[in-house]
């Protein structure tokens, strides 16, 4: 075998050295290589660091207390207050006391995750059972079924509080699910946020690639000499990518709703409007960001940099109120947060436009912001 035919580690290391030199030259890539794992680890660490906590619930304690005689001993019980105190000290839930009807309305509007009614005869029933009567105490729970894992945590907190409070093992938990009263399947509850994620990641990725391809194809210098203005070019990108975004929306719903049969309780037209609006936000964000990418490689890196933190901060993985306090406000500037609100609201809760007006407006405002940013950073000449 000739010398050049032999495997040469030296040549391999030449290739490795050259690749590293190229990465070192590309400052943006280098920054991304260091920044991205750090950002993703930090955000996911915070987001997934604990179980559900601070889940907002309303408790209506109507328990009047009860006194009964056990032989010669008189026993007085205020079990409702004990349950309430136990819940207030449990950091899984964040308790507001109030009227059960108002609490149910609060669950329907998304203010509370659950409303709990401790009836006036709660203590009485417990003591009567202790006296040997065939009665069981009950608690009424009106709960948001759109997030099964949080519902399970709330249920656990409630059961634990009742048992600790009065030492009884048996009580009825009468559960009512909000939004139509039907228990939702795992698929139902995951499709809205998966839809939001797919639109976030893929629309962003395709848009970034498409726009940055113009930069790498070498056609920009010629375009700069034609009557095409930078704004016309920008609008051209936006229109074409919006078509792509709409196609993705159709595919996502065809599979999610058509194939898997995910629930859509609200107006399908409103759902499509929300999805297209969110697609537009992502397109505009991508067009803006691609003004800073010098090549397709840099552009591609931006997609996960946006999409992964969005996942953690949009409520997709962990509810916003379970995130550390200082990070919660950040979720309000994440477009995917509003997309989640809209998709869950329409698909699971059957909300209409009036309930979701704020989320729609937030996305419209973000679209406008990204459009202005894209317009103010688009280049209409060769980079100096």
């Amino acid at each position, binding site marked *: 075998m000739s010398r050049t035919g032999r495997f040469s580690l030296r040549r391999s290391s030449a290739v490795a050295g050259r690749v590293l030199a190229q990465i070192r030259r590309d400052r943006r890539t280098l920054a991304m290589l260091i920044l991205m794992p750090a950002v993703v680890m930090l955000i996911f660490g915070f987001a997934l660091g604990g179980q559900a906590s601070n889940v907002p619930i309303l408790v209506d304690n109507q328990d009047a207390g009860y006194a009964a005689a056990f032989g010669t001993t008189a026993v007085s019980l205020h079990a409702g207050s004990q349950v309430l105190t136990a819940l207030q000290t449990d950091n899984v839930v964040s308790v507001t006391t109030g009227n059960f009807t108002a609490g149910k309305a609060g669950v329907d509007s998304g203010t509370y995750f659950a409303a709990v009614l401790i009836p006036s005869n709660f203590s009485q029933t417990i003591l009567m059972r202790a006296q040997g009567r065939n009665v069981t105490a009950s608690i009424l729970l009106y709960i948001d079924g759109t997030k099964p894992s949080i519902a399970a945590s709330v249920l656990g907190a409630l059961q634990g509080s009742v048992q600790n409070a009065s030492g009884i093992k048996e009580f009825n938990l009468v559960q009512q699910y909000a939004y139509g009263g039907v228990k939702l399947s795992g698929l139902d509850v995951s499709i809205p946020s998966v839809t939001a994620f797919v639109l976030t990641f893929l629309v962003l990725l395709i848009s970034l690639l498409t726009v940055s391809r113009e930069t790498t*194809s*070498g*056609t920009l*210098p*010629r*375009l*700069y*000499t*034609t*009557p*095409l*203005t930078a704004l016309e070019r920008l609008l051209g990108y936006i229109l074409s990518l919006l078509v792509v975004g709409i196609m993705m929306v159709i595919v996502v719903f065809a599979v999610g709703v058509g194939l898997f049969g995910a629930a859509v309780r609200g107006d399908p037209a409103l759902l499509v409007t929300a999805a297209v609006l969110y697609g537009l936000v992502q397109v505009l964000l991508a067009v803006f960001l691609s003004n800073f990418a010098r090549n397709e490689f840099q552009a591609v890196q931006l997609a996960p940099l946006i999409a992964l933190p969005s996942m953690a901060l949009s409520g997709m993985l962990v509810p916003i109120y379970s995130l550390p306090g200082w990070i919660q406000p950040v979720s309000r500037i994440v477009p995917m947060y509003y997309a989640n609100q809209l998709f869950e609201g329409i698909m699971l809760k059957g909300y209409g436009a009036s309930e979701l007006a704020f989320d729609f407006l937030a996305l419209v405002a973000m679209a406008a912001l990204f459009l202005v940013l894209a317009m103010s950073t688009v280049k209409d*000449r*060769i980079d*100096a």
Partner: protein
Amino acid sequence: MFKEGKIKAVDGLTLSVRKGEIYALIGANGSGKTTTINMMTGALAPTAGRITVLGAEMPRHRHVVSSRIGVAPQEYSLYSDLTLEQNARFFAKLYGMGSGDFQRRFGELNEVLRLKGRERSLVSNLSGGMKRRASIACALIHEPEVVFFDEATVGIDPVLRAFLWDYFRSLRSNGLTILLTSHVMDEAGKADRIGLMRAGRLVDEGEPESLMSRHGVRSIEDVFLKLSGKELNDV
């Protein structure tokens, strides 16, 4: 002038191109030819100095002038994943041409530039020479008054080069003004006037014959060598 950081790419360049002439800007690689063309076509803003094209200041009035000029950049600057016709139609639309006008003009250009039969070919499948001609066709599609060809004949065979020069001369006889750049000195002898660039400056200018006689040499290349003192003058 165009200055980037401490490097002056083009400095102290004064030239004027007459209506209806072929003006060849020649110089070594890196002498500032492309930068000059980019400034003239409005793709690059000069950091100092003044440029007028068709009586309008560039790049300030770029959007007025742009529909009257055509540019074939040094890189082909075509969408390689589209067909020749799709490329040409796209540029025609940017210049506001109607479909009828486009069909007529595209047919004419394909005939003259010998691209007939390749209209539906992807640009990526065209040969280098064909890409060059396709790029020229896209620059001429809207019947401009002034065209800028940056290294239009680089990397093509002598037969095609001769053909292109014949074509440029026929365009000129139809009243077109052509400014082209080349680093192939001798072919510039076919231009009406030549400007020699070195390190961002115009070192001499004139008709090919008068340049050669003025410097007492027999070729444009010799004129260039004489002016550059035989130094390596890549910037």
